[in-house]
């Protein structure tokens, strides 16, 4: 029960956190130069986005729940099991970010999901 609760917080916090960060990064705009100064400037702009901080907050919640989970479960169980967020992430990308998911991309995500289920159940 404790494992299921922490796993849910890890998965949902991770999905909504990454979706919020993704939204913020699209607002910042495409990084075209990988020079150190350009990357610093990119980070400065990213840190001004409120969606970024919301995302970081959710990712932190997910991260600390994962730290706790790792203290009593194997890393080779925890990490594959948290991959449930690949399914919730695909749905969130479509519904919240409005991304186009082609049949091939869905097929890939389906393979990943089945693989994750196998990994988590074994």
């Amino acid at each position, binding site marked *: 029960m404790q494992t299921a609760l922490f796993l849910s917080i890890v998965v949902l916090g991770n999905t909504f956190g990454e979706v919020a960060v993704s939204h913020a990064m699209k607002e910042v705009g495409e990084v075209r130069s990988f020079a150190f100064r350009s990357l610093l400037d990119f980070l400065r702009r990213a840190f001004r986005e409120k969606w970024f901080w919301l995302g970081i907050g959710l990712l932190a919640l997910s991260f600390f729940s994962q730290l706790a989970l790792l203290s009593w479960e194997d890393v080779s169980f925890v990490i594959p099991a948290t991959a449930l967020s690949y399914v919730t992430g695909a749905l*969130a990308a479509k519904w919240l*970010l409005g991304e186009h998911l082609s049949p091939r991309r869905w097929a*890939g995500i389906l393979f990943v999901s089945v693989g994750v289920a196998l990994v988590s159940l074994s």
Partner: protein
Amino acid sequence: MTSATTARQRQWKTYALLVPIVFFSSAGNVLLGKGMRQIGDVRDWRLAELGALLVKTFTNGWVWLGIGSLLLFLVSFMVVLTWADYSFVMPASATSYALVTVMSHWALGEVVRPQRWAGVVLICLGVAFVARTPSSSRGGK
């Protein structure tokens, strides 16, 4: 520059950034796992015990190495998301599952059953499918 050239450049930029994303997320998780194992089970939820646990966690070298790796992962992840679809980057970065399984088997000595290896193979197949779709479905800023 044609839009086809831009799309091709974005695809290669995305592949290139998936390398640090996969590496640092795998290394981060394995290092954190190693650190947390040294700290032990969280079974006592009283405030004083949780405080002591936090002190033990943040004075552990492996935990800090793990956090450092995860910060490098986060910056690479942020950069790639300025142009690439989240629905591309997220499943493509699942390659880290294969790495985590291999690294936890070798570095932590955990027993990995054949079913888990089969799951890892399926995940890799899925990643191969996703990697063959355009990484960005929008023009970008």
